[in-house]
């Protein structure tokens, strides 16, 4: 599709997607999106030329130019302009730009936006010359919409359990738990024998709480979307059991049902709440609060398993936008950023975890033993459902989780409500 100076149908569809702006509440559905996508054209040989605009968010956007120096050296005829976009508002900026046909050539794409952007016809399918077999399976699934791969995973993160090793020893536990009951036991031991106010910090609903609840459902063999991504499947015995397990932490007085915001690090360091579930960025956060030597007082372990150990896989992807004037150079840039050595370099610049398994073999990544736990978790971590409407559905789900944790709503009832609300929203297919 070429860029048209007038409002095209795509632009009108984009208007619908800008519903987050409160513009319109139409659904961003595209009738042409139903069939299989056409295979991507190959990329031309030779060095990249011409100019490229690249959008990247926050710290990534600010550090990216440094990483691109080697690409520009190898391709002297290419000029790249990197626009850093604030994380908070990036989604608004992208949907507006897609609507107006001013999307960049290459951009960092949030992992929960993939299906939505694909349904807007905004992203190009990935050419076959870019190998995808070395990516973590969960990450690759996150860029796959209806069996077609769009873009590549750029960096990943996953959630593991942080715990205070010194206090666990005090409570008589030396081995990290591996199953659901073990996690409860450790949390209770903290409360009973190590003077902790609460055994674990969990989010009692509210924005993003699904990121902890959904992995528990996966762990129990549950799913919230069917294989084809066409139907929601919130109501199942496995999901109900997982939500009831989550609820039990609050009803049994193990987790605080009304925690203050932003005190996780403090409570962890003071020992008031010696356990929480979060991503790799919390390592530097707790060590900053805990001061020197604190790194030896805590450890991480993979999510406890019911059937499997499952976690949330986040991070960001790289996408090439439809209508790019410089397609070959755009894909060459993506290809460059997908080389293991470049990913290792990026890890050094940004501490973002590499999405390529091969990059983890480098010593700078594998030397930290806590990263090993993340590495293990990444093998089984799953990306959020690749459904265009997922963000909307997730916010409904969050609200129900809150009812379950704070107001004793029966898990089955919460799931039934979520299911009917999700069906009302639809999957956008």
């Amino acid at each position, binding site marked *: 599709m070429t860029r048209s*100076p*007038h*409002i095209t149908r795509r*632009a009108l569809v*984009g*208007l619908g997607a*800008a519903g987050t*702006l*409160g*513009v319109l509440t139409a659904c961003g559905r595209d009738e042409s999106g139903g069939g299989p996508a056409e295979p991507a054209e190959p990329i031309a040989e030779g060095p990249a030329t011409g100019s490229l*605009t690249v*959008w990247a*968010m*926050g*710290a990534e*956007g*600010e550090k990216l130019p440094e990483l691109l120096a080697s690409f520009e050296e190898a391709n002297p005829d290419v000029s790249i*302009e990197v*626009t*850093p*976009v*604030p*994380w*908070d*508002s990036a989604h*608004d*900026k992208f949907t*507006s*730009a897609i*609507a*107006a*046909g*001013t999307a*960049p050539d290459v951009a960092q794409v949030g992992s929960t936006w993939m299906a939505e952007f694909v349904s807007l016809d905004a992203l190009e399918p990935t050419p076959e010359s870019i190998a995808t077999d070395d990516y973590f399976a969960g990450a690759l699934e996150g860029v796959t919409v209806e069996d077609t791969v769009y873009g590549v995973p750029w960096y990943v*993160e996953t959630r593991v359990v942080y715990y205070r090793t010194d206090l666990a020893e005090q409570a008589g536990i030396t081995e990290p738990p591996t199953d659901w009951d073990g996690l409860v036991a450790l949390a209770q031991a903290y409360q009973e024998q190590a003077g902790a106010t609460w055994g674990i910090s969990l989010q009692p609903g509210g924005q993003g709480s699904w990121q902890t609840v959904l992995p528990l459902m996966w762990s129990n063999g549950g799913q919230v979307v069917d294989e084809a991504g066409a139907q929601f499947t919130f109501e199942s015995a496995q999901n109900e059991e997982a939500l009831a397990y989550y609820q039990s932490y609050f009803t049994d007085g193990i987790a605080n049902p009304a925690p*203050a915001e*932003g*005190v996780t*690090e*403090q*409570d962890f360091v003071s020992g008031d709440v010696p356990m929480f579930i979060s*991503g790799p*960025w919390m390592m530097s*956060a707790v060590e*900053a*609060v805990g001061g020197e030597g604190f790194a030896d007082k805590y450890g991480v372990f993979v999510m406890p398993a019911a059937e499997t150990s499952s976690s949330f896989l986040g991070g*960001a992807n790289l996408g090439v936008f439809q209508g790019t004037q410089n397609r070959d150079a755009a894909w060459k840039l993506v290809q460059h950023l997908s080389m293991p050595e470049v990913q290792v370099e990026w890890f050094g610049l940004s501490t973002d975890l590499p999405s390529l398994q091969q990059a983890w073999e480098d010593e700078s990544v594998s030397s930290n033993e806590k990263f090993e736990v993340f590495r293990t978790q990444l093998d089984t971590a799953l990306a959020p459902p690749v459904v265009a409407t997922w963000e909307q559905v997730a916010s409904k789900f969050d609200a129900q989780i809150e009812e379950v944790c704070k107001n004793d709503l029966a898990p089955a009832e919460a799931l039934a409500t979520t299911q009917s609300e999700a069906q009302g929203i639809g999957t956008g297919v």
Partner: protein
Amino acid sequence: MIEKRRPVLTYVVLSIFLLLVITPFLWMILGSIKTQGELLRVPPTWWPEEPTLDNFRRLFERPFARYFTNSTVVAVVVTAGNLLMSSMFGYALAHLRFPGKRILFATVLACLMIPGLVTFIPQYVLVVNMGLANTIPALILPFLVQPFSVFLMRQFFLGIPRELQEAGRLDGVGEIAIFFRIYMPLAVPAFATLGILTFLGSWNNFLWPLVVSSSESTYTLPVALALISTGQNETDYGLLLAGATLIVAPILVVFLFFQRHFIQGIAATGIK
């Protein structure tokens, strides 16, 4: 005795309100010299234990002057445009006779009633088609004459007697001079109100500059601050508060400068 007690009560009530209003403000300023660790501490501290200028230092490591210039240019031009053109428009609607005046005024009112977000994307597409995407004019043009300003000025001019216009005409003053030499000097209090409101609106505008600007060279302060202080998973509160403090400072200066007129203006336009 009542006369004596009343001022005390008034001061007590006013002080309570002042405290409510000023606390978040002081929190912002004090927070800007705290470390991230101290900002997140529970229970929170009021006075910084280890005051540091580190947040400001990190702020100035960025091209802050660039953002500052962008914000200033945009806000000043937008404000000047509204003062001049909206007042001309408002005057015409209030005191001149011409065909279609009522329809024109109804259109202004209609524009005032449509929420800005509804016209957001069409306006953006328009700007892009004009070839203005990612330029400073794109940040200025759509706001140069705002329906609210036109409405405010019309209402104000309605309160100034039409007899002045007639007197001017009898004395042979031209129509343009009547506006500039008779009505405009009388509108100074309204200008102060309009000026500060427009400046504030432009200075704090976030979504439009965010969407229209595609390079750091055209970012305004609020966009730049959002960029540097919030990450994917965490927020740098110290940097955010330091930036907010710096962003508020010029507004305070503008307000102090126009304070007297501003209060008069509120009183004058409020009565109408």
